[in-house]
């Protein structure tokens, strides 16, 4: 395991270097969050009918999404896709370590580094000034932490499959974007999933993408009760395991037919 942790550590530390960019990013996200919160405020002013979530819950959901946006980052690893384009990916194959694990740990680092930098300032400002509430209970907080780890593991598994798909065709970039679009809306980042019409709910529930955002956020709110949170996390982990196995199989096939163009 040592080399993989080293890859994770090195990449994590690199990403932590961009502190000024992270600070500017926090400003951007606070601004976006404020706009979205005002839109919900106007919607709640316009109705008396009961809604699937209370206004306070939605506000907390929105701020969690802004603070954790980096976790929900979709798409292939940009550096690896450059390597594939330039042919430098041959060096990756020459390394005496497991390629899948290498790329997977890179993906995990890519998600956690920037988020740690942004989560704390955004969480503090939004918590003190803009209505980000505390977790519903300490049990909810614990389950939320677990579900967030699950979200990172799942998101990294998806991203690694996307990265591997680039070994087939670089214009796979387009397909990856289509997939990202579908995942974006099914994860709850655009609109909290409970707001979608009742007839779409079973589909959203069966798909794995709610594990990226909706599950951790609603566990935090207690909107998914603690006793059901375990099941939600199991759903995340089962899909993660499936995707890792699929990714490994895909990579084995890709490597077998890979042609490196000399240069």
């Amino acid at each position, binding site marked *: 395991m040592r080399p993989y942790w080293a890859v994770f550590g090195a990449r994590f530390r690199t990403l932590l270097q961009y502190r000024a960019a992270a600070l500017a990013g926090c*400003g951007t996200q606070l*601004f976006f969050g404020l706009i979205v919160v*005002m839109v919900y405020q*106007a919607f709640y002013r316009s109705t008396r009918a009961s809604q699937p979530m209370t206004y306070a819950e939605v506000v907390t959901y929105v701020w969690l999404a802004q603070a954790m946006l980096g976790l929900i980052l979709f798409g292939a690893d940009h550096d690896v896709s450059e390597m594939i384009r330039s042919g430098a990916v041959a060096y990756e194959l020459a390394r005496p370590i497991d390629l899948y694990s290498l790329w997977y740990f890179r993906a995990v680092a890519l998600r956690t580094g920037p988020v740690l930098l942004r989560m704390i300032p955004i969480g503090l400002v939004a918590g003190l000034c803009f209505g980000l509430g505390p977790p519903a209970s300490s049990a909810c907080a614990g389950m939320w932490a677990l579900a967030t780890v699950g979200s990172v593991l799942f998101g990294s598994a998806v991203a690694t499959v996307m990265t591997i798909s680039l070994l087939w065709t670089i214009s796979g*970039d387009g397909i990856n*974007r*289509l997939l990202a679009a579908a995942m974006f809306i099914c994860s709850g980042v655009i609109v909290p999933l409970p707001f979608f*019409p009742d007839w779409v709910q079973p589909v959203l529930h069966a798909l794995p993408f709610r594990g990226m955002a909706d599950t951790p956020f609603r566990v935090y709110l207690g909107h998914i009760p603690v006793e059901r949170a375990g099941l939600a996390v199991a759903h995340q982990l089962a899909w993660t395991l499936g995707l890792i196995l699929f990714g490994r199989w895909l990579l084995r096939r890709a490597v077998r037919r890979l042609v490196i163009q000399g240069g």
Partner: protein
Amino acid sequence: MNAVHLYVEYLAIAFRGQMQYRTSFVMLALGQFLVNGIEILGVWALFARFRSLEGWRLEEVALFYGLVNVSLGIAGVVAGGFDKFAALVKSGEFDRMLLRPRSTALQIAARQFEFRRTGRMLQGLMVLVWAGAALDVSWSTGRLGLVILAILGGAALFYGLFVLQATLAFWTTETLELMNAITYGGCEAGRYPLSIYRAWLRRFFTFIVPLACVSYFPAMAILGRDDPVLGSPMWFRWLSPAVGVLFLVASLQIWRLGVRHYHSTGS
């Protein structure tokens, strides 16, 4: 060759160039179309739950959504040079542009066109057409003309924001994500009528970055609605898109100031 001719020539070359990789082009444009198009699904879901937004119906909000997305879509395609400008300062390549016998603004403007980014414009256009059909508005030539003027004014305004973003690079060398907040935050905010927001945000997007002049005011004129929140007179709503063009002109003046301030990074 005059400046306009040169610009059109560059535009044609870039278009032919990007069309060489047709599959990749179609996939990327389609990807962008869907990534942006998915947002309207969110708006639709919220309207399905809440029915109305402070008295606004979905098709009215779709008009705002369409206007701002088409405007930003056009600017995103043609302002690629300014959007990616910081890289030129960092690499020192801007020095070379200063030697050429054309204005720097023209060279940057004609340097890069992102035709792949037509996706946002197309999805905005689709929403706009749907809104036009669903709205209970009689589409006179005047109203249609105002839609086009609002789009052009909006594109000019967003182009101005890209120019300002590039100008900042003279001082910071880096592209600041801060400007993204205003450009894309403006698009986010402009999807809904400005009257629903709190006063500070309304004022920001009216007096500092006059987004209201290219979306809110013309849309109110088209819808023939009263404007109790901002109290704009009717004649102003018809003229307001011109403010977008003024914003672009002002941005280009600031750009010239920036060029005068420029020190090469020496790389």
